[in-house]
């Protein structure tokens, strides 16, 4: 199973589908998500393709379904999640769906327009009834209605209405213009417009009018916008024709609804009753309409999800059919698909199955593999565990076809490097518990995760977080760090009392100095290395950081050199697979020699110093850094203490190797190509063909292929010399290009080795930061709370009480800060840096990452991913 190591083999196949079974075959293929279709009609735009009408029909139906879903949402009905997997509809079924959907839409629209009309009517009636009722108030004060010509002054207050005569204004009264009658306009206006309307009326009519207004207690609904406004009933009493027109115009400006005022009290009473009954009727009708709509929508809810899915699938199938070529002569659809080699038989089976179902006894649909030079898509099959890691590798670049996939190794190295930077037993334990909870309640979380993006990110990475937590527990035990305190699992190897018994310390020594140093050379003080991890005594030491820094820096360098060497070795696997033998000796071997001679030697020095030098000779132990620098500088060596015997000779030999591998990296390839070209020139025709094939194999910038046919098109009937000249030109350009390429890569590699090795020191840096943050948090929060019983002034029991009571919120604060700062912030930081180490330092040694992902024609991904195309 080469799946995750290298990616699967993919071949290009031509499908010949009989037109009548094409639709069902594509439906099956979409369900199975087997193959990726290539667009054979890419030069046509969307409107020139064959199945445009069908797609348009699908989109019409989709639009109507969208409208129905909107209505359902507006009515606050929940659409349940779709169960099962409905298939794409056949032509007949599609017609049924279309009819259903269109009928439902018609009914809904009709009902909607009726409802709007009824609402409008109801509003008007409501306003009219209010107006009648409220303006009655002003009318009552006036007494009986009479027709009289007497004028009254309008400048007085409303009480003067008692004396005023309320005359109904009619059109024919305009003949009595000489004696200006008191007329009035009544209606309803929204409360916010009222003050400005009043002012406008006063200014416009020069005071020849009286405005009387009463607010309506109930909120009225504006029929057009649907919002609720406060309104007032108003009554404008005026006399004079011109004033009347002005008043009406002004009222129009403010969008007032003007209603005619009844002539007599009797009429008024009748009108009020009539309004009342009409309002009740309309309310009843509206209620019935609402019920009907609700019922219809509830019926539709069950099928709306299914309709949408089916129509989507149909549209996807037609889009795919648009990508195929239609050979009307033989009546079949030709398409080119990328298919993983493993699934070819399955594909064949599907085609036969569909043809058989279509009623043909002989399977007419068949497929045919064709070799090709084009870049193949990359297929990596992942499961729920490996998909998170594959995603982070793909974020940098999708692997080229059949290239070694770094994901396989990232599964372990990434959590490990994260843990080296995060190493804390307590925090690792918390992370593990969290990830374990996510993993164990997978089914439940999968449903919740769909709604929240950030939670979904954590959920998708649950296995990664689990591994990171487990490795952090391990490194926490190695660093012996649990919430910044060390665990004494085994008894410590350092013994203080031995300094008194066998050593120079006395009782007075303790009072003499603030800081004392334990001497491991005294018998009994140091009894050997701690069995697992770092000795817990270092947690109490003042020079803890000096010790830990030295240890962690050296550890980072060792891990870095191992990681990078592994990357270089992986490039060997790529070279072997693609058959580039020249590169193995001209590129891989010099690279490895360079890296190991310099930094492999550094690792050797570190290990040697750890093993061969002890506390006895620690006073005269040489510094690795100085020796490493001197390796390159070749200074005079009288009097220097060497780390081991023969170090000078070994270093000189390694420097020769390093200085030798540089030029080979730089010039090896171009010289080799040049030599090949010279040989070819001496033996032209026959060699040209095979040399060209070999040269194409060697060229760096050809897409990496699985060693498939590098078909050389040799045109017949060519003059030999022309052919050779053309070959020569190509080779000439190639050598120059190759040289430039090699130059850039050599400089990048050599300088990169140095900088990348230093870059791995971030493992030390982040680990140090985490330790320090943890320590500060403990000291500031927990330590202060635990040390509270030191308040000397109060009573003992109050002191103890304060201590215990304050420990409770102090611990809560400690938990909050641990979680937010130490776990989330430091976790994200370590995650990012581990990711960078993988992307840049590790993958630059062997990974090209210029492929593209295999995206099969799959209904599942189309439905989840949103719009197709």
């Amino acid at each position, binding site marked *: 199973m080469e799946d995750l190591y290298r990616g699967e083999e993919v071949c290009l196949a031509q499908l010949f589908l009989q037109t009548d079974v094409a639709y069902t075959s594509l439906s099956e293929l979409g369900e199975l998500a087997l193959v990726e279709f290539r667009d054979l009609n890419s030069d046509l735009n969307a409107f020139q393709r064959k199945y445009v009408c069908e797609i348009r029909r699908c989109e019409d139906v989709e639009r109507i379904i969208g409208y129905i879903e909107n209505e359902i949402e507006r009515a606050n009905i929940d659409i349940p999640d779709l169960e099962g997997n409905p298939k794409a509809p056949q032509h007949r079924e599609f017609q049924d769906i279309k009819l259903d959907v269109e009928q439902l839409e018609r009914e809904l629209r009709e009902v909607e327009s009726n409802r709007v009309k009824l609402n409008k009517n109801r509003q008007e009636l409501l306003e009219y009834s209010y107006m009648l009722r409220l303006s009655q108030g002003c009318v009552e004060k006036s007494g009986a209605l009479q027709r009289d010509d007497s004028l009254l002054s309008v400048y007085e207050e409303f009480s003067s209405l008692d004396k005023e005569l309320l005359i109904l204004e009619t059109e024919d009264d305009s003949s009595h213009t000489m004696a200006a009658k008191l007329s009035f306009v009544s209606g309803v206006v929204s409360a916010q417009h009222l003050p400005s309307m009043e002012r406008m009326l006063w200014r416009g009519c020069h005071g020849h009018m009286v405005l009387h207004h009463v607010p309506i207690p109930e909120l009225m609904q504006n029929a057009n916008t649907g919002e609720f406004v406060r309104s007032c009933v108003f009554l404008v009493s005026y006399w004079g024709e011109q004033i009347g027109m002005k008043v009406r115009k002004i009222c129009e400006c403010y969008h007032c609804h003007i209603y005619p005022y009844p002539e007599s009290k009797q009429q008024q009473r009748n009108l009020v009753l009539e309004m009342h009954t009409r309002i009740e009727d309309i309310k009843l009708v509206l209620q019935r309409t609402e019920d009907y709509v609700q019922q219809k929508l509830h019926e539709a809810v069950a099928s709306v999800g299914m309709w949408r899915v089916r129509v989507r699938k149909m549209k996807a199938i037609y889009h795919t059919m648009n990508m195929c070529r239609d050979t009307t002569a033989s009546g079949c659809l030709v398409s080119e698909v990328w298919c993983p080699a493993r699934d070819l038989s399955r594909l064949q089976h599907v085609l036969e199955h569909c043809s058989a179902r279509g009623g043909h006894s002989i399977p007419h649909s068949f497929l045919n593999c064709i070799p090709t030079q084009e870049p193949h898509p990359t297929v990596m099959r992942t499961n729920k565990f490996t998909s998170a890691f594959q995603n982070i590798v793909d974020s940098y670049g999708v692997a080229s076809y059949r290239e070694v996939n770094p994901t396989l190794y990232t599964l372990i190295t990434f959590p490990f490097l994260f843990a080296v930077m995060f190493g804390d037993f307590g925090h690792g334990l918390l992370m593990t518990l969290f990830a374990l909870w996510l993993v164990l309640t997978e089914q439940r979380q999968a449903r919740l995760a769909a709604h929240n993006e950030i939670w979904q990110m954590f959920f998708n990475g649950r296995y990664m977080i689990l591994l990171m937590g487990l490795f952090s527990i391990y490194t926490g035990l190695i660093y012996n760090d649990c919430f910044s305190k060390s665990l004494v699992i085994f008894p410590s190897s350092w013994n203080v009392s031995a300094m008194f018994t066998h050593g120079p310390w006395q009782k007075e020594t303790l009072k003499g100095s603030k800081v004392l140093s334990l001497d491991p050379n005294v018998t009994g003080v140091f009894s050997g290395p701690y069995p697992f991890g770092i000795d817990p005594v270092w947690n109490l030491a003042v020079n803890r950081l000096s010790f830990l820094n030295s240890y962690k820096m050296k550890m980072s360098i060792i891990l870095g050199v191992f990681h990078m060497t592994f990357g270089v070795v992986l490039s060997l696997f790529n070279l072997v697979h693609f058959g580039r033998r020249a590169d193995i000796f001209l590129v891989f071997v010099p690279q490895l020699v360079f890296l190991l001679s310099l930094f492999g030697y550094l690792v050797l020095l570190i290990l040697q110093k750890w093993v061969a030098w002890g506390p006895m000779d620690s006073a005269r132990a040489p510094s690795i850094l100085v020796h490493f620098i001197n390796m390159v500088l070749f200074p005079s060596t009288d009097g220097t203490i060497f780390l081991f015997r023969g170090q000078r000779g070994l270093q000189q030999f390694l420097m020769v190797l390093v200085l030798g591998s540089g030029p080979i990296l730089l010039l090896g390839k171009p010289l080799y190509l040049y030599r090949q070209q010279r040989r070819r020139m001496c033996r032209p025709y026959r060699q040209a063909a095979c040399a060209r094939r070999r040269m194409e194999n060697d060229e760096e910038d050809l897409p990496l292929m699985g060693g498939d046919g590098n078909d050389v098109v040799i045109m017949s009937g060519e003059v030999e010399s022309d052919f050779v000249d053309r070959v020569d030109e190509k080779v000439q350009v190639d050598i120059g290009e190759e040289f430039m390429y090699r130059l850039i890569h050599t400089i990048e590699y050599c300088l990169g080795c140095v900088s990348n090795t230093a870059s791995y020191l971030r493992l030390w840096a982040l680990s140090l930061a985490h330790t320090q943050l943890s320590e500060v948090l403990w000291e500031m929060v927990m330590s202060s709370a635990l040390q509270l019983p030191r308040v000397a002034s109060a009573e003992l029991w109050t002191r103890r009480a304060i201590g215990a009571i304050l*420990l409770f919120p102090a611990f809560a604060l400690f938990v909050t800060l641990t979680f937010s700062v130490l776990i989330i912030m430091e976790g994200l930081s370590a995650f990012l840096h581990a990711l960078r180490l993988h992307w840049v330092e590790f993958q630059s040694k062997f990974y090209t990452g210029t492929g593209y992902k295999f995206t099969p024609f799959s209904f599942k991904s189309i439905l989840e991913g949103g719009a197709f195309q």
Partner: protein
Amino acid sequence: MVSCVLCGPKLSMCGIVLSIWGVIMLVLLGVFFHIHSAILIDDVPMTGNYFISSSNITEIYDMYEKVAMNCFIAAAVYLVIGIFSGCQICMNRQRF
């Protein structure tokens, strides 16, 4: 129980996680103080002065015991909070 629901589902979940962590960690801390662990010497009050003025080990152990008792009391408070949060969770689940 007729008590009302004071905390929502998320707050009570936070409460119970905090309480479980608090109980476990404070009990362990109390135990470590009780066995006079040397690592925790900086968290015990007034040990700085003791080594200079007198080398009476029992006084130092007494301080250790006091701090241990504080930790156990705080653990008990967290246990109460935990029970309360647990009840809130049950009541929240019942409501829906």
